[in-house]
């Protein structure tokens, strides 16, 4: 509870900091809108050209796209400390100051940055979710709404978990290596389309190593009434938890890696 309070307080301070430069903030937020709008345009063009992808209709594809962008940009917004700032904190030695405070390192890293500019990306995703839901005629029930919320929440932790791979690598190498980007940004770009659109090796990658399929595609296909691989309903409720598992494993790896942290010169 105390940690959540600290997180909220930190966010307050960080947002206040960003609003010190209102024009810059506004322009960057607009830039984000254009960027994510462009991504969505790609989906619109695809749908316009092909009408459907395997069994998925246009509405379904908007729904998948919306789910990915809401989840991904929520992670980038509230987990900015992990997704963006961590490598530079290691490189500049700013991480030292976190080590001097009586709180968990991961907690403090989470509290160290927020990126409210992503709000426009999240908005684009939300619009896409709504359009998709209308076009696919989803019959909403409390259970389905809950499943959507679960998928987003677990996806949030999955994505942070994947970004932690890079954090762990950069503790060892001091310099950012960006090798994990294949899973994070690559995963976002690929998995905004349902998993059965991909060949087997990629399916394995995004089911076992970076389980976007388990966290997003299986519950989403259930919500859309077209369960992937005809899986039973309970699977859709259980499979997203794999995202939290990934985060748990990486958080453990992170704390182990911190023992090797060697700081930088004075």
């Amino acid at each position, binding site marked *: 509870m105390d940690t959540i309070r600290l997180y909220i307080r930190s966010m307050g301070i960080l947002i*206040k900091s960003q609003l010190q430069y209102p024009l810059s903030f506004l322009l960057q937020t607009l830039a984000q809108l254009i960027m994510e709008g462009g991504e969505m345009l790609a989906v619109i063009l695809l749908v316009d050209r092909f009408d459907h992808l395997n069994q998925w209709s246009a509405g379904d594809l908007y729904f998948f796209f919306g789910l990915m962008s809401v989840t991904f940009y929520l992670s980038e917004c509230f987990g900015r400390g992990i997704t963006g700032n961590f490598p530079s904190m290691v490189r500049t030695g700013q991480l030292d100051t976190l080590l*001097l405070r009586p709180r968990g390192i991961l907690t403090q890293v989470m509290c160290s940055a927020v990126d409210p500019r992503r709000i426009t990306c999240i908005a684009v995703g939300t619009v896409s979710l709504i359009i998709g839901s209308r076009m696919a005629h989803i019959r909403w029930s409390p259970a389905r709404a809950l499943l959507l919320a679960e998928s987003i929440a677990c996806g949030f932790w999955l994505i942070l978990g994947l970004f932690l791979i890079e954090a762990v690598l950069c503790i060892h190498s001091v310099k950012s290596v960006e090798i994990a980007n294949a899973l994070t940004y690559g995963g976002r770009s690929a998995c905004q389309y349902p998993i059965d659109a991909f060949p087997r090796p990629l399916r394995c990658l995004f089911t076992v190593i970076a389980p976007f399929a388990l966290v997003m595609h299986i519950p989403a296909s259930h919500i859309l009434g077209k369960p992937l691989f005809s899986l039973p309903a309970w699977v859709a409720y259980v499979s997203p938890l794999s995202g939290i598992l990934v985060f748990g494993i990486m958080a453990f790896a992170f704390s182990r890696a911190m023992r090797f942290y060697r700081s930088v010169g004075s």
Partner: protein
Amino acid sequence: MEEKSFIEVHHLSKSFQVRKKREKGHWRGEKKTIRALKDVSFSIDQGELVGYIGPNGAGKSTTVKILSGILTPDAGDVRIDGQTPWKDRKEHVKRIGVVFGQRMQLWWDVPILDSYSLLRDIYRLNDADYTKRLHELTEALGLGSLLRTPLRQLSLGQRMRAELCGSLLHRPRILFLDEPTIGLDAVSKLALRDFLKWENETHHTTILLTTHDMEDMAALCSRVMVLGRGQKLYDGSLSALLREHDRTRSVEIRYDTPDCMPSLPPSVRMHREGDTLHLTYATCDFSTSDLLSMLQKAGAIREMTVQPQSIDYLIADMYREMGL
């Protein structure tokens, strides 16, 4: 039973692996091991104000980082108030305050008061105690009028005072300072010194100060440790250390008639600047009265000053002698 000191450091060693840049024609860069600390031991009592000096790269910052729990040593043992810093980091850091002269811990774009209230949450301080301590510190540091100013708008000296306040809010029993006066002007430096003395005296806070500024050292620390190439070379009073290396005097002298040239032994270095003569001699060569009589033979002296070497020169001499 042997009485334990507040800070006990036994046989501390730490080395780093540094990879050198890859040379042409080689597959990978050579690895080089730098031994930052080699078997360093010392102890500090509660309430002591100790200076820690040594040339760049001597291992001072490494020591501070180990004592504050950021780094784990390769070998050796540290006990601070009975506990090992890197074993239980969270418990340990509640009791210490650390200020790095070149690293800021407060938030850059918000008023410093906001930073302090976030620190209150981080350290889980109770409100009454926090308010009292904040009041006391802002008074002592002269920060009252700056509390609502964002950190980025403060001058370097003001920023350092703000940082100090931030690192002392949780009433640490030990304060580690790593080059706190770096880049400060004379006024800020003096204010900082006064404050450190005050904190040390009123709260009995143990302070370990790393600096290159010998004036700080002389003004604050009765005890000095000298570190060089990862080893402790001296531990004792600053005045004794200086006395040991204080062997030369420089003399400035002006005669009534400007072209007077005293005849002096060749060991005395001498040069002329306008009508002033500058001499440097070693005190072990002859007594001051001998020198005076030699100087007076040349003519009537109008003005004369005798000065010891500045502390910086002494320290540079000392480092040279110790082979650093």
